């Protein structure tokens, strides 16, 4: 590219085919530059997406917080934004989100970790080649289908054990959500464990350790940063999950940490409002952006925590 400048300076003294060649070369350089800028703009679209998300959420939330004080948003124990006597206590929705996520993680983390350890350290090659794509398929099932499954299959099943269980409850939704998250947890953890060098395992075997001891005391600690980031991804998936909860956990705001009760989550509330027709610009319309901002901050905190964990516990081989 730096060849252009001298070419431009001398082009006036050149004759005939030389100047033609130079002008062709110049147009080629210009075209290359244009193409590079177009590609750069395409890459910037993702940055604009983030800027757009933050802009929209903050813009609408600012209007919302002019009506509702931040203190009452965080401390009010009721969430009744559409009533005459409106209360905006995000705690109510947050309790639903946290409870269902806790149930989901109690399923996904143990099962996902065990599957990862098994596939990485014990499973025969053939089984692994079949199991990995299968788990990916499990992760590819639309969440609305999981929601249907939670409502018409898992809830009736649980009602046989607890006959008092209501038709909408956080437990069934949480369990199905946990199963949905297993593939995310297991596949990232497994990648992390497989990245542990063979020599560590060989060293452990040489000391007389069994396969199980090697897996749990050498491989898992060595891969801890990767496993932790798999857990964090699982948490942010659970917190942001929408349709399973909107279908199977009900849409009634309920300040509870009991998974046997129905309760709305932040995401389910957004769906509920979007399904009705609230006028654009009303306080009810702005609540979903405030709720969305809370959600976004929560997942952002997860991502930062994951990043910090990975840095802190990174093992260097």
């Amino acid at each position, binding site marked *: 590219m730096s060849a252009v400048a001298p070419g431009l300076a001398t082009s006036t003294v050149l004759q005939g085919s030389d100047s033609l060649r130079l002008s062709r070369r110049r147009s080629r350089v210009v075209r290359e530059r244009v193409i590079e800028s177009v590609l750069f703009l395409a890459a910037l679209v993702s940055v604009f997406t983030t800027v757009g*998300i933050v802009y929209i959420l903050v813009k609408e939330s600012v209007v919302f917080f002019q009506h509702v004080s931040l203190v009452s948003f965080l401390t009010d124990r009721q969430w009744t934004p559409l009533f005459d006597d409106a209360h905006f206590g995000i705690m109510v929705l947050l309790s639903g989100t946290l409870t269902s996520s806790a149930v989901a993680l109690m399923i996904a983390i143990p099962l996902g970790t065990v599957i990862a350890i098994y596939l990485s350290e014990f499973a025969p090659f053939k089984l692994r080649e079949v199991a990995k794509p299968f788990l990916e398929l499990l992760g590819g099932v639309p969440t609305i289908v999981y929601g249907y499954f939670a409502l018409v299959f898992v809830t009736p099943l649980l009602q046989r054990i607890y006959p008092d269980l209501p038709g909408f409850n956080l437990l069934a939704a949480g369990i199905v959500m946990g199963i949905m998250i297993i*593939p995310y947890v297991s596949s990232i953890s497994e990648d992390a464990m497989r990245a542990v060098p063979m020599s560590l395992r060989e060293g452990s075997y040489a000391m007389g350790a069994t396969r199980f001891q090697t897996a749990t005391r050498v491989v898992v600690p060595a891969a801890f940063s990767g496993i932790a980031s798999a857990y964090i991804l699982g948490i942010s998936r659970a917190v942001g999950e929408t349709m399973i909860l909107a279908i199977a956990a009900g849409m009634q705001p309920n300040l509870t940490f009991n998974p046997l009760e129905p309760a709305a989550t932040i995401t389910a509330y957004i769906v509920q409002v979007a399904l009705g027709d609230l006028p654009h610009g009303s306080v009810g319309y702005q609540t979903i952006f405030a709720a969305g901002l809370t959600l976004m901050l929560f997942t952002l905190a997860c991502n930062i925590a994951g990043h910090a964990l990975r840095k802190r516990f990174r093992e260097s081989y």
Partner: protein
Amino acid sequence: MLVGVLALMVGVLTFAALFANMALDGIGRLSWDFFTNFPSRRPAQAGILSAWVGSTLVMLTTAFFAVPLGVASGIYLEEYAAKSWVTDIIEINITNLAGVPSIVYGLLALGLFVYQFGLGQSILAAGLTLALLILPVVIVATREAIRSIPQGIREGAYALGATQWQVSKDHIIPYSMPGILTGVIIGMARAIGETAPIITIGALTFIAFLPPAPLKAEAPFVSFDWLFSPFTVMPIQMFNWTSRPEAAFHQNAAAAGFVLVLMTLAMNALAIWLRYRLRKGIEW
């Protein structure tokens, strides 16, 4: 060892139960009429015509935006970008975007596309939303595919006097095509099942008409009116049926879910197969 097998079995069994449950409930409703009828108040006559047509059109729009943008971003980041703070920001940003809950994209679309750009609850707004949602998937797949191309191919092309764009266009893109395709299919399979962002932009759940046809008898023969038409998609139709109390509608939901699962499974299986071929077939 045994525990591992058991844990794996939980996944397998759930999947089997889910699939069998849906198939048993829904299979009775699957018929030709189910695909050619509009939704109806009478469950036995309701069908998914407007839903699958809507899904197809939204997917077309999504692919139209997501594929060129994603591939171009991937090429820029791998082939052009110098190591600078701008590149770092773009990279960190893509990683973060992949972790943003899909419903937040819905809020973005509601505020930006529906109201600020005035697109309304249209196919275009939905397609753009899903395109942004799967953009990180396409970008990451493109970058991985490009990264696996040996440096020698680039050097050979440069040695023959090719420009950077000629190298990208004639060598990098064709060689990374199968990898890009895999990523695009996985992204589309995700987009077709996404419900939350589309509900958030306010798609209607009961649509008993089709968008205007893209082809017309008189000049100019093609019309893009369908981009601005109201619509519904498969997952929303299923959500609508699931949230009704009558059991007969649950059967419809199961049938629609069955079709949806078959579609996403087929797409994912195709992607997995492509990747498998890719890993085996390539010798540089």
